């Protein structure tokens, strides 16, 4: 019993001294390091997105630190795993901001988890930035239409992809008539379809048929047969790779050869497994980045990334890398480690050159950046076209 008491006392002492450390206010002298929080999905359902982003971020930080850091300070990443869970993401954001004393938090990767951390950022007046939260609603602008001051992202949103693919269909493929087969069970596909229709019709095109399916469906033969005899030039297929792969396979099996367009939900190696190489011809999708981009900056990134991690980078790696560079750039321009000054610098960004494109931060905290349309031939990415925002 006595032993336990001593242990408890000792523990109290330790906690007390730790609290003392935490309470010490930073002195006036210039700090030698700056802490940046990393709040990502490192395990759980979307761990592959989180891990890929973090690899890119850490690579950017390593490069910056090796080159002398930002304003003479070394970047210290504080990396935590939110387990792909929104509640966990919220509590980690609080922990990073309140306990760890970070100046900005990067992540999470998916819109839902990222949105869960917005109130924490607003309350603590510390900026959060995501590289891949593409949801149209509720991210940088709240439900009332007011911009969330401390919330940024450096990817385009879903509806922009719908607009781009519609322009791609009418300008690059000279399509006049389109069929839409959309995932009715996701907001993502809904937003894409809506914007595709508006843009495509505005440029003189006609939507011949609009069919829907529900996530996890496997049989699309009936809807494909019903559109087969219609007169159309392209199929727009907003949705995720799990169903898109099967739709493409069944469409090609039924003899439908029209080009099939989609968005970044196609970007997975599983698409190839499900559809098979033979079906993946004349398939185009919009993405954040393409490894076929001949820009020297992109090619250097690919080379450096492949040397460091032994695999070719995907879009999430590239977005993560840009995110790391972007936050460091903002700290540099802010000239201080005050989160509010960093927030202002993030919002002021003009012409930031990243591997996923050059962008300026818009007034609504969405970047104005170009998009890449990737073309597949026998399942391999063979063409890429950069489309600039209008």
């Amino acid at each position, binding site marked *: 019993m006595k032993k336990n008491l001593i242990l408890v006392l000792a523990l109290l002492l330790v906690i007390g001294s730790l609290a003392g450390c935490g309470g010490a206010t930073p002195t006036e002298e210039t700090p030698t390091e700056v802490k940046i929080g990393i709040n990502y999905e490192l395990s759980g359902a979307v761990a592959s997105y989180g891990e890929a982003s973090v690899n890119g971020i850490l690579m950017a930080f390593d490069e910056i630190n090796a080159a002398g850091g930002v304003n003479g300070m070394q970047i210290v990443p504080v990396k935590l795993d939110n387990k792909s869970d929104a509640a966990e993401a919220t509590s980690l954001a609080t922990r990073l901001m309140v306990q760890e004393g970070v100046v900005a938090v990067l992540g999470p990767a998916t819109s839902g988890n990222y949105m869960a951390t917005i109130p924490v950022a607003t309350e603590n007046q510390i900026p959060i930035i995501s590289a891949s939260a593409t949801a149209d609603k509720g991210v940088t602008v709240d439900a009332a239409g007011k911009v969330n001051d401390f919330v940024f992202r450096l990817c385009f949103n879903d509806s922009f992809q719908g607009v781009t693919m519609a322009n791609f269909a009418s300008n690059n493929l000279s399509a006049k008539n389109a069929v839409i087969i959309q995932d009715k069970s996701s907001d993502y596909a809904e937003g894409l379809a809506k914007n595709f229709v508006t843009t495509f019709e505005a440029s003189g095109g006609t939507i011949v048929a609009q069919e829907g399916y529900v996530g996890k469906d496997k049989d699309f033969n009936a809807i494909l047969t019903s559109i087969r005899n219609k007169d159309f030039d392209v199929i727009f297929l907003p949705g995720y790779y799990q169903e898109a792969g099967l739709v493409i396979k069944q469409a090609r099996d039924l003899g439908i050869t029209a080009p099939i367009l989609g968005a970044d939900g196609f970007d997975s190696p599983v698409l190839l497994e499900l559809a*098979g190489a033979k079906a993946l011809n004349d398939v185009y999708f919009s993405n954040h980045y393409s490894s076929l981009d001949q820009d020297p900056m992109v090619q250097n990134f690919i080379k450096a990334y492949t040397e460091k991690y032994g695999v070719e980078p995907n879009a999430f790696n590239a977005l993560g890398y840009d995110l790391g560079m972007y936050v460091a750039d903002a700290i540099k321009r802010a000239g201080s480690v005050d989160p509010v000054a960093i927030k202002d610098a993030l919002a002021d960004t003009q012409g930031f050159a990243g591997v996923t494109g050059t962008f300026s931060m818009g007034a609504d905290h969405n970047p104005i950046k170009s998009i890449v349309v990737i073309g597949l031939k026998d399942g391999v990415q063979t063409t890429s076209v950069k489309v600039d925002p209008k």
Partner: protein
Amino acid sequence: MDQFLQQMVNGISLGSIYALIALGYTMVYGIIKLINFAHGDVYMIGAYIGFAATTYANLGFFPALIISMLACAALGVLVEKIAYKPLRNSSRIAVLITAIGVSLLLEYVMMFFVGAEVRSYPELLTDKAFHIGEVIINMQQIYIVVTAIALMILLQFIVHKTKTGKAMRAVSIDKDAAELMGIRVDRTISFTFAIGSAFAGAAGVLVGIYYNSIDPLMGIMPGLKAFVAAVFGGIGSIPGAMIGGLSIGILETLVSGYGNSMYRDAAVFAFLIIILILKPSGLLGKNTREKV
């Protein structure tokens, strides 16, 4: 017309799969009056066994089909022995709830081991297609329909021409009387589970090849629709399950082809409600007054 014929091809391929699953429902119901809700998940496990056999052991279509059928038969018997047999004399609702529990157990144990992401089969059957006018029939569809018909003929033979089949029919009519006549009731019930589950396993492999996408929750929807098919055909009736399966497949295809694809599932379940109101015993069911 071409379009209609093509839709019939689609509907019959889909319906054959429902029919194979529905057979398991109907046989089990016929013999112990249990709606075995875990049946759709046996089908899912059959798909995964076929996946393992073809991907890791590099087996062809027929060996994979047979391995999957045998493994599912064993699984069906195991489930029956562990979960249902101890409840043989309990109330029907207790067994029904147990069946739902077994269903969830199979789904999430499988998800724990194989993960939630979809997997795809290697290319096993040639995807050669036959063009008859504008109608396209591919080899996989032919395999599905032929396998389904062959298995159903085999089942009719077992039930009507063999001693075990006779025992099955006897147990189904009157369990106690059958026991008094010296029929080993427990063994007959196990055998029924084995056959029903083997058919579900076969359906799993066929679906894996045809759609090229399997996941741990793939059994839920087809399981429910096969249940509707079994009720439509007259639960307990084997030819009824075949007719029911094909009808549901065709109904679903026509609704999405000519109506709205979003109402496809709703149409199937609305159909179930209509049957239960108008003809609860189904097309070929015996007209007994019994509550399920």
